[in-house]
């Protein structure tokens, strides 16, 4: 299958280098989960890919066209943030319809598309509710519906269920998996939960500790049993966490240097 999204040599420095260099390709229809220890720059990487923040080095190509921060590209990127970022003074339907305006749809078409995507996210009947009147899970569903409504080339999700309780989290994971299967969208999903990544992703990208590079890229195609995969990833993440906290002696690479 064709490469939809290509991340090539992306790096980011703030005061210190946060992302050293990260490269990978995503095929159309893939569900990629980005994993890594806290503070390794997962969110920053996602923001660079979405064109929200500029990269210090490297380029992001979507259908071979560069994604540049601050530009208004013809490529469409849908983003679901950690928080729902809904406008509290608009109903769920108005919130979704709002982001369709730049696409040049008429008012009726916007309403129709918004309703269809709210229904897809399991919110049929709640179109005229205000965000403050529904649960956190329903607000996050609305944010997903909003991101899908623009029919994005790629859907970026930044720990979208971090604020939900365990039960809602599990429900939403199943829902996202279902929506992915129904729509065939290309999804990039940041999470710090290994179980979550293994449960929903087709490709798992494990980042190293800061300054981050790719530690491991794993196809989650069932060839390795889930339990085994979770154990392996847990071991990796613990190594990276220790390295980040200065326990460098135990990591293989530090040993090589000696």
């Amino acid at each position, binding site marked *: 299958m064709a490469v939809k999204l290509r991340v090539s040599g992306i790096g980011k420095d703030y005061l210190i280098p946060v992302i050293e260099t990260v490269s990978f390709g995503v095929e159309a229809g893939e569900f990629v989960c980005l994993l890594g220890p806290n503070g390794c720059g997962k969110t920053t990487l996602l923001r660079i890919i979405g064109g929200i923040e500029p990269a210090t080095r490297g380029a992001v190509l979507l259908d071979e066209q560069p994604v540049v921060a601050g530009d208004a590209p013809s490529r469409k990127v849908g983003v679901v943030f950690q928080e729902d970022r809904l406008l509290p003074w608009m109903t769920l339907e108005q919130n979704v319809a709002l*982001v369709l305006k730049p696409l040049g749809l008429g008012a009726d078409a916007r309403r129709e598309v918004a309703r269809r995507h709210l229904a897809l996210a399991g919110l049929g009947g709640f179109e005229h509710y205000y965000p403050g009147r529904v649960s956190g899970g329903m607000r996050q569903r609305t944010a997903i519906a909003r991101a899908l409504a623009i029919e994005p080339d790629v859907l970026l999700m930044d720990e979208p269920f971090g604020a939900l309780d365990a039960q809602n989290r599990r429900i939403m994971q199943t829902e996202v998996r279902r929506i992915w299967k129904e729509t065939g969208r290309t999804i990039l999903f940041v999470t710090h939960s290994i179980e979550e990544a293994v449960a929903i992703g087709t490709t798992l990208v494990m980042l190293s500790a800061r300054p981050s590079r790719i530690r491991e890229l794993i196809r989650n195609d069932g060839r390795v049993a889930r339990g085994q995969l979770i154990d392996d990833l847990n071991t990796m993440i613990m190594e990276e966490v220790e390295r980040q906290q200065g326990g460098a002696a135990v990591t293989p690479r530090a040993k090589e240097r000696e």
Partner: protein
Amino acid sequence: MAERAEGRGAARRAARSLDAWADRLHLPTLAVAGLAVGVWALLSWRYGAYVLPSPLAVVRGLGEILSTGEVWTHTGASLARILVGFGGAVALAILTGLAAFVSPRARAVVHDVLAVLNATSVFVWIVLSIVWFGLSHWAPIFTTLMLTLPVVASNIVEGVESVDRRLLEMGDVYRLGGREKFRAIVIPSTVPYLVAGMKVGFGLALKVSVVAEIFGVTSGIGYIMNYSREILATQMVFVWALVMVLVMMLTDKLVFDAVARRLSRWR
């Protein structure tokens, strides 16, 4: 015994619901007001009508201006001046808020200017407006404008500063244009601050414009109060003070509270 306890419970419940009703009708406040009127009547009887007119004289005075229609002439004149002065202040405050939103440098200047205006006394503006505009309508109008501007503008600027940057970023991600972001995100975040500022500002406008009306105009609540004092009709001073209080309370309840309720529908 159980029965008696139940009976007592019912009595207590009845007493509690009576209490609730008394509170809803502001009965405690009315009781205090009644006491105050009683003391007022006594003091009036002791010191005479010039210093303290009797409650009855005040009620009679109120009836008089209501029946002659004089109450509308002066209240109308005051309100018209407030509308111009306060309206101008609101318009300027909105422009200030826009400037503060567009440029951080403008915001810093606005903060400093508002601090100075906030620290300036009413009397400065009254005296200056008489110097600049003579004895005319424009003196109370200008005074009202200069005094309410910092109150309303501070609120709007605070509202502009409180716009959630994360929502604006969401707008960027979905490629909303500047005008669309302004309409959908900035205005709805700022309007509640504007309304709160206008509520305080209007109260201030009513109090201040009346003071400015003492000088140089021949209509308005401030003028007529001062005139009543000069012709030794102290009861009319009380009557007009009462009118002012009523106007203030009514606009608060009927205009600002209603608008605030409508704005917070989604909460």
